[in-house]
């Protein structure tokens, strides 16, 4: 019996591996699953519904973009820190059964940021869809354009590409200023790149190396009053493509 143990282990290993491979499709969504989940998002996105985004999980599950047409699809990697600018509701559209999917950690990250689940997850085959209330403070003014998107730190950001050395003047109200900035694409990883400063009058954001840098500062009293905001971007190296996102909340 003992002599057959290595053979038994090898057979078990082979059979187990094969079983894992052959059952993988059961853990993955079909086109119909995607279409149904997208339909559910569409149904919840009618007139009068809170502004929403679909956060896919894992962040590589971007086939969602083929199907979800009613609200923006985002592939943020750090759900605790992501801004979800302008959204009040988040649909967590996930593949809960994929290996190393980490959905539990994703939910924990949402809870950590103060988001609240609005109900149980609905399953569409191998997909799950969970509505979350982001409990985000209302946006007072968007100070930079969100027309374009640029990749900073591997995530598509709705930020405004601004030449380094430029001065940006905007006007708006709000009690807290939020600044986000970073170098677009691969230039962020250049060796020995000079640091970059975004001076905003109420604070300075330093961008060193790669990453999506953030600064949140309380503004002097008078939240309802409109005021001027001036952003000056300075660096010894003006060549990298740079992206800025700024907004205020009430």
């Amino acid at each position: 019996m003992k002599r057959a143990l290595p053979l038994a282990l090898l057979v078990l290993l082979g059979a187990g591996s094969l079983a894992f491979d052959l059952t993988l499709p059961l853990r993955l969504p079909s086109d119909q699953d995607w279409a149904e989940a997208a339909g559910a998002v569409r149904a919840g996105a009618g007139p009068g519904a809170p502004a929403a985004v679909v956060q896919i999980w894992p962040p590589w599950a971007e086939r969602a973009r083929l199907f979800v047409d009613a609200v923006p699809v985002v592939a943020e990697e750090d759900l605790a820190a992501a801004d979800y600018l302008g959204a009040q509701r988040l649909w967590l559209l996930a593949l809960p059964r994929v290996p190393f999917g980490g959905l539990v950690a994703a939910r924990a990250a949402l809870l950590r940021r103060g988001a609240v689940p609005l109900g149980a997850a609905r399953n569409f085959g191998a997909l799950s869809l969970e509505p979350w209330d982001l409990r985000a403070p209302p946006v007072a003014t968007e100070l930079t354009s969100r027309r374009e998107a640029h990749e900073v730190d591997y995530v598509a950001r709705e930020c405004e590409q601004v030449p380094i050395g430029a001065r940006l003047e905007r006007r708006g109200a709000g009690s807290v200023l939020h600044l986000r900035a970073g170098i677009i694409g691969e230039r962020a990883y250049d060796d020995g790149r000079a640091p970059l400063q975004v001076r905003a009058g109420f604070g300075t954001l330093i961008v060193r190396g790669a990453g999506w840098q953030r600064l949140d500062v309380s503004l002097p009293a008078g939240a309802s009053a409109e005021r001027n905001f001036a952003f000056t971007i300075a660096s010894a190296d003006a060549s990298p493509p740079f992206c800025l996102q700024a907004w205020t909340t009430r």
Partner: protein
Amino acid sequence: MKRLPLMMGFLTAVALSLTQADVGFVRDEGYYFSAAQSYETWLRGLPQSLAETERYWSVNFEHPPLAKLSFAVSHLVFSTWSRLLPDALAWRLPAFVFAGLLSYWLSLLALRRSRAAAVLAPLLFWCAERTFFHGHLAAFDVPICAVTAGVAVAWLRIASPLEGQGLKHSLWLAFLYGCALATKHNAWFLPPVLLVHALLLPGPARARSLRALLFLLLSPLVLFATWPLLWHDPVRHLRDWISFHLHHVHYAWEYLGRELRAPPFPIEYPLVVDALALPLPAVVLYALALASLLTDFARRRLGPDRLLELGLAGAAVLPFMLRTTPIFGGLKHWLVFLALLAPEAASLITQIAERSGLRRALPLAAAAALLPGIWQIVHLHPYGTSAYGELAGDLPGAASLGMQRQYWSSNVMGVLPWLNANCPPGARVYFHEVNIESYRAYLQSGQLRQDIRYASGPGDAQYAALQWHREFRDREPETWNAFGTRRPAFGLYLDETPQVVVYARPGSPGAP
């Protein structure tokens, strides 16, 4: 005695030639096809073209000539002259021969253990989508693997008291090592291994082997004879070749959630990549084979055959554990490591079966070892650079772990039929990682419609076929901005993981 290895070699070449049609042209093949075309033009122009050797052979000066020359000769004979084969198949034909030779020599190495091992060793090596994929390419990775195995067989023949007498064996060894030198620079590592191996052999075998080692001084003649670039100003050209590899650029490469861009790289990198990319039973068998060889080496119970296999396998992988060697391209660079462990791993399968004392244990053990790999091929071929094994959780698990999704752009094959069906006449397509040489190969092979044009970026394109790489994530938002849509029209998704995502300008045929 040699009939079984010959059969394994023949079957390998046949299997690869039957499954090559869907394999996309990898970036490097584009360069090698261009080089082969240039060398073929030189061959056809002989002897007048001798005066312009530098011009024709400077194309892809950074790699030695043998494989590319074989692609050129194959194309000249089977395509240009006889019109028997289409261009791409004619260029790739020598790759199947090299793959067949690899199986032949692996089988010969394993035959020293048992006939069953001689069958299982090549099967174990090829039954994984990564290795199977590389067997199809007009590139250097499988050819260098093959000639290294050939050098091993020739060297062991010299070390053997029964086989190794005579000048012809030493000359054959020198010729094969010359072929290795003329195939890829990995060959530079072989002489030190052979020297150490010779020194560890018992008395008479040691003397015989050391004498044979001197014959390797003749090997550069093969390099010189097959590389006309060296016929003029050889020192400069040799310096350029060596310098290119000593100062090779480091491309960004995704590994366990990190982008590796520059040294120092993780020391365990090649072993982890092997473990995650190959089918799990193969991983375990290779690991046991390595452990068995190392243990017996420590106990001084390693015979000359196994000692050489350990040495060559080690020399193949250790440079990638130095932390400074470029690591992009994954396991293709150390295929010799797997190949030279395959005979020992195959032998372990037979031993496990024999020890059990059960009837039909060998087919059962072989099936357990090979079936997951066969399934991987059936399921994923021709998308070999994307393949991951069960330890990684297959492709979705590897994507979650943050492993390199794909490379070399050949997965674009998966979206060419859609582009052919949807692009209006003369449409401009941004092919992203697909270089102009590979694009031309797709046109030439008829896999891409002749009127579809190559765009330099999303800005001047009507369609974009983006290959998912973490270091190229900026291309997707760039395409959204240029096209004014964030919704793809089509895509190649393997087990849900995005590989190639196609965008179409709104209003274009096929746009959502």
